[in-house]
């Protein structure tokens, strides 16, 4: 590099900076209105904005919203990409998004709360009811949005159960990101099932038959005894938990309320039956002998590499599993089901019904009006046009319309440019029922069908909306007693009597207190 050239270049840079500054300066002084606030870096208002809401008479300044969101995608798109622009234009906002990798989001969140450096929208993600979050709720760090929800046509459609599950002391400190309440499923190799000549199982016994056939009847047809029934991870990790089977057999979902007092599922005979079913799978080697130490990638590897014929996960990942199995077995087919019936009937365990919440700190969202403006933004994301953008991306780029129906042309681009950065972290209301229909993979249709059907059979955990201080403080420690005993029982290291003793230990070392606290919470609420 020649020195003079460098100097010249530097001169140019500083001139262009100066120029830019004067431009920004003049732009601000002419358009900035003091009432909207926080719009120092806004681009000039769009002049050809056809999507303006009809009730807006004169072009309003775009409202600046800052957010801290969890991110599970690969690439964070540049802020001036067409998708973000389309969202900003439709909602008349300017977005400033900070992403943090999902796995580390909680660490970041606690630091954000401690420092008070919070943007206007902060996601809470991962384990709910962490003590520091609850205390932030108690200390009124975030807005209670429950008084405002009814004003918003889309947000108000969110299921009450979902709000109840994220509520604290009757107040809702964040907007839940809806997801199906019961969405766990047994994802299986449909091509294997056809090979062994069976139908999709409807009952637990049929399920067992299927697993056995996957082990014994050489479903991959390679002439070797190298397949087995189901890939499952450590109890407490990837599941299915004994709870899942116990619920099929008619047990409560973790807790049940009987005459006002809380009873834990482990003291119900059905739970033990579920555990024995798992033991049977283990004893007959229908699950991996090392299931208890497998982490998720290992366990998924077993399914992807066609060693196991079933894997337990959520309905929405079935398609991705199919793609991954097809990488090595091109004609593989995958399908799934959620409910296995028993002589007690049909049940399925329900979960929180949301993937964390979006919270609005009072330090950055100063007025009620600002809060409503932000809620309007999230409400608008569930409008038809936004639902289509977030579900189908940009027409011609991510999808195309064939005979009036959408069709995805580049799923990977959609995931990276729309799904991970915008749809999943920001949308509150499930867009599936709102979006324009399209030609999709039958697995996606089945996903809707199964999760919709599950609603009729769902068994909820009555403790989900309640707070127990003991559980908040020592829950993990105590749950470990149950989980460890379960694994030991399944692997035959302890017998029924010893297992029961462990449950009694759980009860006496804090379980009872938790039950009492839930009881009080239920009575108080």
């Amino acid at each position, binding site marked *: 590099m020649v020195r003079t050239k460098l100097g010249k270049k530097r001169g140019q840079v500083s001139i262009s900076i100066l120029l830019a500054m004067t431009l920004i300066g003049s732009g601000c002084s002419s358009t900035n209105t003091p009432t909207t606030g926080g719009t120092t870096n806004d681009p000039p208002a769009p002049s050809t904005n056809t999507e303006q809401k009809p009730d807006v008479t004169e072009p309003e300044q775009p409202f600046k919203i800052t957010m801290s969101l969890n991110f*599970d995608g690969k690439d964070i798109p540049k802020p001036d990409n067409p998708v973000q622009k389309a969202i900003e234009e439709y909602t008349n906002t300017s977005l400033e998004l900070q992403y943090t990798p999902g796995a580390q989001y909680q660490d970041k969140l606690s630091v954000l709360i401690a420092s008070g*450096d919070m943007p206007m929208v902060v996601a809470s993600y991962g384990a709910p009811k962490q003590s520091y979050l609850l205390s932030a709720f108690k200390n009124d760090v975030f807005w209670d949005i429950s008084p405002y929800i009814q004003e918003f046509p889309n947000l108000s459609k969110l299921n009450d159960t979902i709000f109840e599950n994220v509520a604290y002391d009757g107040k809702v400190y964040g907007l839940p990101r809806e997801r199906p309440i019961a969405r766990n499923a047994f994802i299986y190799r449909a091509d294997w099932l056809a090979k062994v000549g069976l139908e999709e199982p409807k009952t637990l016994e049929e399920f067992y038959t299927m697993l056995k056939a996957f082990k014994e009847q050489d479903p991959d047809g390679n002439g070797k005894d190298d397949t087995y029934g189901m890939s499952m991870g450590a109890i407490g990790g990837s599941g299915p938990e004994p709870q899942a089977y116990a619920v099929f057999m008619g047990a409560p979902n973790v807790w049940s309320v009987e005459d006002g007092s809380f009873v834990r599922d482990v003291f119900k005979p059905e739970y033990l039956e579920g555990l024995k079913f798992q033991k049977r799978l283990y004893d007959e080697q229908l699950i991996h002998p090392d299931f208890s130490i497998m982490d998720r*990638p290992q366990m998924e590897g077993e399914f992807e*590499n066609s060693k196991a014929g079933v894997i337990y996960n959520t309905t929405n990942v079935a*398609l991705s599993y199919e*793609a991954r199995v097809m990488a090595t077995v091109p004609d593989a087919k995958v399908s799934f089901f959620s409910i296995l019936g028993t002589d007690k009937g049909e049940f399925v365990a329900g979960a929180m019904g949301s993937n964390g919440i979006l919270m609005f700190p009072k330090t950055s969202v100063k007025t009620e009006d600002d809060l409503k403006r932000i809620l309007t933004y999230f409400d608008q994301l569930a409008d038809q046009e936004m639902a289509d953008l977030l579900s189908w991306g940009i027409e011609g780029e991510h999808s195309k319309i064939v005979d009036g129906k959408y069709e995805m042309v580049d*799923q*990977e681009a959609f995931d990276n440019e729309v799904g*991970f950065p915008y749809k*999943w972290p920001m949308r509150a209301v499930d867009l599936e029922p709102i979006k324009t229909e399209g030609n999709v993979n039958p697995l996606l249709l089945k996903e809707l069908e199964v999760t919709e059907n599950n609603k009729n059979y769902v068994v909820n955990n009555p403790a989900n909306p309640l707070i127990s201080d003991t559980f908040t403080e020592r829950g993990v420690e105590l749950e470990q007693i149950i989980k460890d005993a379960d694994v030991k029982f399944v692997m035959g290291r302890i017998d029924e009597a010893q297992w029961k003793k462990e449950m009694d230990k759980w009860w006496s070392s804090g379980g009872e207190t938790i039950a009492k606290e839930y009881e009080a919470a239920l009575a108080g609420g």
Partner: protein
Amino acid sequence: MPIHEGFLSRLADILIYTILGLASAFAILPFIYVLVNSFSANETVFPTEFTLDAYRYILSTDKFIRSMGVSIYITVLGSVLSLVVTSFMAYALSNRKVPGRQPVLMLVLFTILFSGGMIPTYFVVRAVGMIDTYWALMIPGLLSGFYLIVMKDFFQNVPDELKEAAEIDGCHEVGIFFRVVLPLSLPAMAAFGLFYAVGLWNQYFSAIIYINDSNKWPVQVLLQQVVVQASGSIGDSASMGENVSFYGQSVRMAVIIVSTVPILCVYPFLQKHFAKGVLLGSVKG
């Protein structure tokens, strides 16, 4: 090299060479396993299909080159800064005649034993205005008390005759450091430089906490994202469609290769400084 060697000595050589050969084989085999599987469609001990898809997938991220640049920048600049500050301080502490040396050493030891934790450190980093800057990745871990104390010991082992000789030649403290102590401690500088560099290269958590702007992410954060997405352990957000096909396993393996090979390459360059005989030459000269 000595000319005549006893039988025992030769036997020892054979033994040493064999042991080290075996140790190297054990050390490298798993790495080869990872390397091979990064090119393979499915994880196995003996892969059959060769594919570059995993690397293509990683390199397809827009920010890969940028974040690699960030990592190299903070690693190079950070380890130079760390070495300079550590060696200066270690040199000062290596002289027993400096009054107040003892309390300083106590202070350093105290910071090795006790730590304030994540949140208080964040407050400090914020107070000095480093949030969202590359400095936040280099300065909070600038000095390791551990390395400082060991380096101090290395400096103390430089023979005093040499320092005194330099003093007689008219060097003062600064001159002695640069002309005598530093050249004689090149092996130590290489070792600690490597330690600092590896620490800087591998840092992940501090980037998550201190960096909000994803354009400033070091490569480790970016690659971790790639792994998370590729392994499908993403619960809700998973919506991989039908026309995506990639190999979760091989992407994980490829990420290991991509994230370690650059820093692995540093070692051979530093290695020559571990050569024997540094001291001998200088004593004679």
